């Protein structure tokens, strides 16, 4: 909310520097986002008059100007502009001047002739047409007609004698979306009295009932509707002070009646509307719900289709305004208007909010209605508008006002134990301090015993309970008075992480210790990612949660796998010429039961691994997966994967029993190509919840015994298609309980072994805990292993 310092001074004496005022507002809860002091941005620019123009001897396009700036001597300035003539009044940037663009002007020579400054354009002074007529003209700003003496500071000419504060008003303080509201807070923090806006006018145009008949049909959506009439109006530009103040807060002056409604909106915070009385059929104003499909062309010249959730302000036949949002063209004030009806109403804020959103139509008026207008402002706003009409002689005012009020205008009384305030704050605030602070905020307060009895004004409908009062008291008593305590009266609790949270930490640590760096990627992705991953049309991974209002198509669905995000990270690093990299991330995937989504999707935490580089292959990447599996004691099997985004020969799905818990593999070359990379990319994903579910729980002592192990190695020839897992399963089952370790330590291929054959060397370790094994026992076991390998896998001993 922008407020002008001069405007504030209408209502409160401000005797502190603007920066000190800003600090005080901040400590009272009003963030000052910017202090706009236009005068300080333009320095040493004055009003001057061109007395003589001559051609530059060495440049066709340059002219030498002799400028009268109210000093004895004229000033010589060279200009390239062609729109100047002798006798013109112009803004002159003198030697060592500052322009609002930040540009500093110094004297210099142009084609050998001295130039002691610069003539300024509207653009160079950062003026728009609204600020000064002619400001947008290409060339120098011509200011003919100005009455100020030559040499007058341009800030004075432009009226830059005001400072504007841009104040952040929090959503609970809708009463401060106005100059008066801010002035009220300033009066409190400075300890000064608040002057209410000047009200006073005479009525000379009959009764308001001669002009309009108001009926509120939906009191819920329209708790209060007030109206007044003005006859024989004169449409003209507003008085200079009104124009200047509107401009200072960024509004463009239009004509007097529009300006007055805007002026009251900014000053009092009450949105106003002016109807052309003659355009209201039947001289009726009816506040009713719109009929479904009812249409209105609003003041923005666009047609809007209304429905019965919206409040319309209508005459006998048709909607004339979308209540609280925008007026209609069919009833607007124009140059032929004779009589007008002012509207000053309160509408239900949630309803205005919905209407504005549904129609996608937002205005200064709807902004304020959405935040809430108190029940006191309707009368004040109307009186203020009529006062301005009377003061400037814009028309004749009818006697009386219409007031359709269906709201309770009594102030609520709140009784709160003062001790309760102390309990909330943790300090004891002197009772007289509490009472004086609340009263300074116009919350009428007396102390009965130790009970605060408060009457909050209607504009403070946010004051409802002890906590609200505690906040009002402490923000003005000062947060510096809050001391530091450490929940001395609270109960001790045992904190920490759950086992599942600790498991995630463990998984992350394993990844880090294996050289993987953690990434952070968006949870949303592009629906096209499913095509990049070559998912079939009926792949369940395509079933995803869709964002209704995404920032873009590429971030419009919630991911159902982390593969695509990881591939994007890998590819982006390849494209940045990073030679090798290892990444991981633990994040959720979002798995809806059905689409469109009607209940919260299942959110599952997944680990994704990604790597590339010349030393990476399926087995190097699988190492970290196996490290996690080992750490959590999972009994897994690896089986060739059929995932469409993985290399069909170099990928595996990982199972615990029948349950898939993840996969590992090389990215399908076509998928990698879709990311514009030729490198081999590797990815793996593990379902964290499954890791936690199937993990080995705790540790148990297992006796190792003092008896020595016996080791045996065998080498067998098998078909290429026989897998390591099959060989080891066979060896282990034949080995029985005395076999403690079985592992493959070499795989060898050679022409002498035969085509499509390989030689596999297996190391076996046998041990008993209660006695030393005999050679015969071990040999018998090895024999059994060999027999089984031969019968089950067609192996031959080498």
């Amino acid at each position: 909310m922008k407020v002008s310092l001069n405007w504030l001074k209408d209502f409160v004496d401000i005797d502190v520097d603007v920066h000190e005022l800003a600090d005080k507002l901040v400590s009272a809860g009003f963030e000052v986002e910017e202090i706009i002091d236009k005068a300080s941005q333009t320095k040493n620019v004055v009003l001057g008059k061109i007395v003589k123009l001559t051609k530059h001897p060495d440049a066709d396009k340059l002219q030498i100007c002799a400028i009268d700036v109210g000093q004895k001597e004229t000033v010589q300035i060279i200009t390239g502009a062609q729109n100047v003539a002798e006798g013109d009044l112009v803004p002159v940037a003198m030697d060592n001047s500052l322009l609002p663009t930040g540009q500093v002007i110094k004297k210099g020579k142009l084609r050998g002739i001295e130039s002691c400054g610069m003539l300024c354009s509207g653009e160079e002074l950062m003026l728009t047409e609204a600020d000064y007529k002619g400001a947008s003209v290409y060339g120098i700003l011509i200011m003919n007609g100005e009455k100020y003496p030559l040499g007058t500071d341009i800030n004075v000419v432009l009226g830059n004698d005001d400072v504007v504060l841009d104040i952040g008003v929090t959503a609970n303080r809708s009463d401060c979306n106005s100059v008066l509201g801010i002035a009220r807070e300033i009066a409190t923090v400075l300890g000064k009295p608040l002057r209410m806006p000047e009200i006073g006018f005479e009525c000379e145009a009959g009764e308001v009932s001669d002009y309009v008949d108001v009926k509120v049909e939906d009191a819920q959506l329209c708790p209060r509707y007030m109206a007044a009439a003005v006859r024989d109006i004169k449409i003209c530009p507003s008085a200079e002070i009104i124009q200047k103040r509107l401009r200072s807060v960024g509004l463009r002056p239009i004509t007097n009646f529009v300006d007055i409604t805007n002026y009251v909106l900014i000053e009092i915070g009450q949105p106003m509307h002016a109807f052309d009385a003659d355009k209201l059929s039947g001289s009726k104003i009816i506040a009713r719900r719109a009929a479904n499909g009812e249409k209105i062309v609003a003041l923005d010249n666009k047609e809007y289709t209304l429905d019965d959730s919206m409040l319309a302000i209508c005459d006998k036949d048709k909607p004339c305004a979308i209540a609280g949002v925008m007026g209609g063209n069919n009833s607007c004030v124009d140059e032929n208007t004779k009589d007008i009806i002012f509207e000053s109403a309160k509408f239900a804020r949630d309803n205005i909010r919905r209407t504005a959103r549904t129609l996608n139509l937002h205005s200064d008026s709807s902004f304020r209605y959405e935040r809430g207008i108190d029940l006191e402002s309707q009368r004040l706003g109307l009186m203020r508008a009529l006062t301005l009409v009377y003061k400037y002689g814009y028309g004749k005012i009818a006697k009386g006002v219409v007031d359709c009020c269906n709201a309770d205008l009594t102030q609520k009384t709140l009784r709160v134990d003062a001790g309760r305030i102390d309990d909330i704050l943790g300090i004891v605030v002197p009772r007289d301090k509490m009472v004086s602070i609340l009263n300074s905020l116009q919350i009428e307060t007396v102390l009965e015993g130790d009970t605060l009895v408060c009457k909050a004004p209607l504009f403070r409908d946010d004051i409802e309970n002890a906590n609200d009062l505690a906040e009002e008291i402490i923000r003005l008593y000062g947060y510096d008075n809050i001391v530091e305590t450490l929940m001395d009266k609270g109960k001790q609790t045992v904190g920490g992480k759950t086992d599942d949270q600790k498991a995630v930490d463990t998984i992350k640590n394993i990844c880090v210790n294996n050289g993987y760096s953690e990434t952070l990627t968006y949870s949303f992705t592009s629906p096209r990612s499913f095509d990049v991953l070559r998912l079939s049309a009926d792949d369940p991974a395509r079933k995803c949660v869709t964002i209704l209002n995404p920032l873009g198509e590429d971030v419009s669905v919630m991911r159902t796998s982390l593969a695509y995000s990881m591939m994007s990270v890998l590819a982006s690093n390849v494209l940045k010429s990073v030679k090798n990299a290892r990444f991981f991330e633990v994040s959720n995937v979002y798995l809806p039961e059905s689409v469109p989504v009607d209940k919260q999707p299942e959110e599952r935490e997944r680990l994704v691994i990604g790597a590339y580089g010349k030393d990476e292959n399926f087995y190097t990447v699988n190492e970290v997966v196996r490290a996690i599996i080992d750490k959590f004691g999972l009994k897994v099997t690896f089986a060739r994967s059929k995932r469409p985004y993985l290399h069909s020969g170099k990928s595996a799905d990982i199972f615990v029993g029948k349950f898939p818990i993840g996969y590992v593999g090389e990215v399908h070359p076509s998928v990698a190509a879709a990311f514009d990379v030729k490198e081999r990319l590797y990815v793996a994903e593990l379902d964290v919840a499954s890791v936690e579910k199937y993990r080995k729980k705790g540790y148990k002592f297992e006796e190792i015994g003092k008896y020595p192990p016996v080791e045996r190695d065998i080498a067998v020839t098998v078909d290429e298609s026989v897998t390591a897992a099959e060989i080891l399963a066979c060896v282990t089952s034949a080995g029985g309980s005395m076999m403690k370790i079985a592992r493959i330590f070499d795989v060898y291929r050679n022409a002498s072994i035969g085509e499509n054959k390989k030689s596999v060397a297996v190391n076996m370790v046998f041990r008993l805990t209660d006695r030393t094994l005999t050679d015969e026992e071990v040999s018998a076991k090895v024999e059994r292993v060999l027999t089984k390998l031969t019968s089950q896998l067609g192996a031959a001993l080498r």
Partner: protein
Amino acid sequence: MKEKIENLMNTALAEVEQAQSVADLAKVKVRYLGKNGELTALLRGMKDVPADQRPVVGAYVNTARDAITNAAEEKEKALKEKEIEEKMAKESIDVTYEPTEVRLGSLHPCTLVKNEIVDIFTSLGFSVAQGPEVELDFFNFQALNIPKDHPARDMQDTFYLGEDMLLRTHTSPVQVRTMLDKKPPIRIVVPGKVYRPDDDATHSPMFQQIEGLVVDKHITLCDLKGILSLFAKELFDKNTKIRFRPSYFPFTEPSVEVDVTCSQCHGKGCRLCKGTGWIEVLGAGVVNPKVLENCGIDSNEYSGFAFGMGIERITMIKYGIPDMRILFENDARFLRSFR
């Protein structure tokens, strides 16, 4: 005789001394101390020594034998040591050469900061709570005193997934879920991803928050200040101070913005703090009694405080990262610098 023995001993000792290898030494030992060695021969010749001199000569011989034996043992030890030294010298390698890269990965800087914050609060008795990111309007807004069509909804633009379903805009719905589920005393911290439709140098459509909630008897605004002050000293440095500024959040009353003294200039004023000496790091307040009541907790008996902060923002402040988007670029070189 004595002279003879002494000469023999001296010669032997000199030979021991001169031995160049364990093999050389062995030969010397055999020559003097062996079965047919010279000293042994002397002993054998004892029978020719007059009986009265035998003990004296015997002692001489024994002394000589001991001296040679000891010297040989010493020498052998030294020679073996030397041989090992020589062997090791031959095996010497270039210890400055690094044939393989150190393969240590890294946690994301935001995770480092999150872990630090979580550790501080768990040590103060806070449990880590989590909740769904796809939330219902009730938990994200209504229960937190943000009714439908309330202007406070403008404070948090929202990604919608359906009529009542959305991506949570803050971690606060976990407060509601926890309070509905557990009885006080409650002390939780809630780290997690949150979503708002913003995308620029200081905003990301997905970011991480961590928030805390305490609900117990007799919890006050002073307790909030004490805990946050302790937290700020742990997270930044021990001289860090905090200050409260009034603010507004629908779910706390009173509500405050919390500033900490700038960790770079310690309050003198610098670019990081825009010359103010203070940096805004979190929002906090006394839990609004309406929220307690919405969650079935008697607000006459219990009170509490809540606070929340953006993990990315703290990460940027702590590590001097100028643009939030860097945190989401996932450049391997950037990430690995946090090893």
